[in-house]
């Protein structure tokens, strides 16, 4: 089974009905190099919108995003990561009710917890991590980060429509892809052991 099927599996678990609303929420600072991966992903999705998929973008998540995510059936938080993952990683995110706060910003788990506490609704949520490599002040992504952006974007474009077609499959809360360019196409394969739970 390849990663695309895993994705469809996730989609199936997320969507119990056709036409469910999906939010892709990219965050980060585009002026800090690869920290702009999340906003760049959203920008790309906005150029060719996908039916039923809304986008949101900000420097970081904050408390008001609890209201935003409460209005969707599923949310994909997209952010850059410093972790040495193989390109792109998707993992499920659940509300965390004892999250400690360290900055003015809020983590996805806390946004979900607030959504559930304040609005009685908590969308199924995933964290889409794209590995970044350069974090200095400056516009534009590093070449490797751009590859990861393309990998994530291509995956979303291939799989999001399936989510809305109610395809079902195995629930895989966490997975990781390496991106490999071959004949101008992006292929998705297992990064280490394929996926991890």
């Amino acid at each position, binding site marked *: 089974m390849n990663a695309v099927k895993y994705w469809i599996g996730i989609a199936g678990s997320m969507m119990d009905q056709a036409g469910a609303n999906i939010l892709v929420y990219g965050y980060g600072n585009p002026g800090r190099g690869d920290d702009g991966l999340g906003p760049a992903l959203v920008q790309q999705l906005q150029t060719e919108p996908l039916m039923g998929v809304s986008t949101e973008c900000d420097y970081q998540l904050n*408390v008001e995003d609890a209201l935003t995510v409460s209005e969707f059936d599923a949310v994909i938080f997209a952010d850059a990561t410093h972790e040495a993952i193989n390109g792109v990683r998707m993992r499920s995110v659940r509300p965390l009710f004892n999250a400690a706060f*360290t900055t003015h910003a809020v983590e996805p788990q806390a946004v979900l917890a607030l959504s559930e506490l304040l609005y009685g609704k908590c969308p199924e949520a995933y964290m889409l991590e794209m590995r970044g490599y350069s974090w200095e002040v400056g516009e534009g992504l590093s070449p490797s980060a751009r590859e990861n952006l393309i990998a994530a974007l291509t995956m979303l474009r291939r799989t999001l429509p399936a989510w809305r077609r109610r395809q079902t499959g195995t629930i895989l809360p966490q997975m990781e892809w390496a991106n490999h360019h071959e004949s101008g196409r992006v292929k998705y394969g297992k990064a280490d052991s394929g996926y991890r739970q």
Partner: protein
Amino acid sequence: MGKKIVIEPVTRVEGHGKVTILLDDANKVTQSRLHIVEFRGFERFVQGRPYWEAPVLVQRLCGICPVSHHLAAAKAMDVIVGAGTGDGLTKVGEKMRRLMHYGQTFQSHVLHFFHLCAPDLLFGIDADPAIRNVIGIALKHKDLAVQAVLMRKYGQEIIAATAGKKIHGTGAIPGGINKNLSLEERDGFIQGIGGNTQLSIGTMVEWAQAALALFKDYHAKHKDFIDGYAAFPSNHVSLVRKDGALDLYHGVLRGVDADGNRILDDVDYQDYLEHIAEEVRSWSYMKFPYLKKQGTQKGWYRVGPLARLNTCDFIPTPLAQKEFEQFKAYTGGKPNNMTMHYHWARLIETLHAAEMMRELLNDPDLQRTDLVVTGTRRDEGVGLIEAPRGTLFHHYRVNEHDQITMCNLIVSTTNNNQPMNEAVDWVARHTIDGKAEVTEGMLNGVEVAIRAYDPCLSCATHALGKMPLEISIVNERGEILDRNRR
């Protein structure tokens, strides 16, 4: 054996801060410092770029207060394009910027109170960190959390409508703005965004009053803590309107000492270098600004909400003015030097910001179409603004090719550098000194004093996995005696 306590980074403070407290063999505090890893390379980054890009470029500094940098840079570029030194724009140009700024101030102050301050007040500074946060507020005080979310959202929507978008807004341009406020947008803000009457300006004013009442009620029950904690005399500096009114967007620079004597007498901020200098110290990346006339030892000053209410003569909106009168009466009209009263001042400003937004939204000038003015080109300009956290300086020089050749920024948190160090020292000497054991509550007490200033260190990238808290107790040989990570 002496010990060193390290709090790194400081929790719920933007960016990376580190506190070190040195103890001698008897656990007496011998030194306490707030070190900050502040990014300073940005000033070089903008060199060589066309000046008209600056208002957008500078937002890359920070994801917390981008609007403040956007507006300060735009004001400096107004000078460059000959559009005056802050008061030469068209009515719609200035008022749209003011609406953007008051929207930013409103949502920033709301975030600080509900997210960073209220948990300490409602649960106590020695409460379990697992509940001493906004989730804890949502669990125990749901109505407050709902208000916080909607107040934040309202401010964010004002920013999006005036700046054009949430990230890297382009609303303010040299000499003016690039859009006005449509009638549809205006009606939404007045009657309720998206038909939600809770997201109306009237509700925002009411909730700002309620937040202020909450603080005042707490203050009445905890006077010793709010009045005495980390209190120390200082100078205070801010912009004020030429007639002495509180003005967060434009004015002249005024400074008062701890007794209220005028030490900076309504000077033109284009001449700030004649009055203010920055000292470099080897142990911190962040400089220490001071008033030249008073010197490095006596010239340091506070900025931000507390300083602004100490320097201004009145607040030009009725509800906030009434609160201001109570605030001033509390100290008999003298400057208020109580650190925890930053929260009180911040909430009065929150109410003022809501009132200002209401006034502006009902002003037909916002629908005018004369957006930009130009004049005689100049090669140097200074833009100042009262950002939520305090006075923000942007200074640029431009060459004949329209490229920026020099940039100097003094951000609000830099202005508050010495005061925050004073606050850390106060807490160390009053709560840690001589104690055999340093508790979680004591360590949070250090941060409570710093958080009163709502520092924003402008350097975090917010990517995943970058903001752990580590508290280490280290002896003088560098051996870690205890470590706490959260």
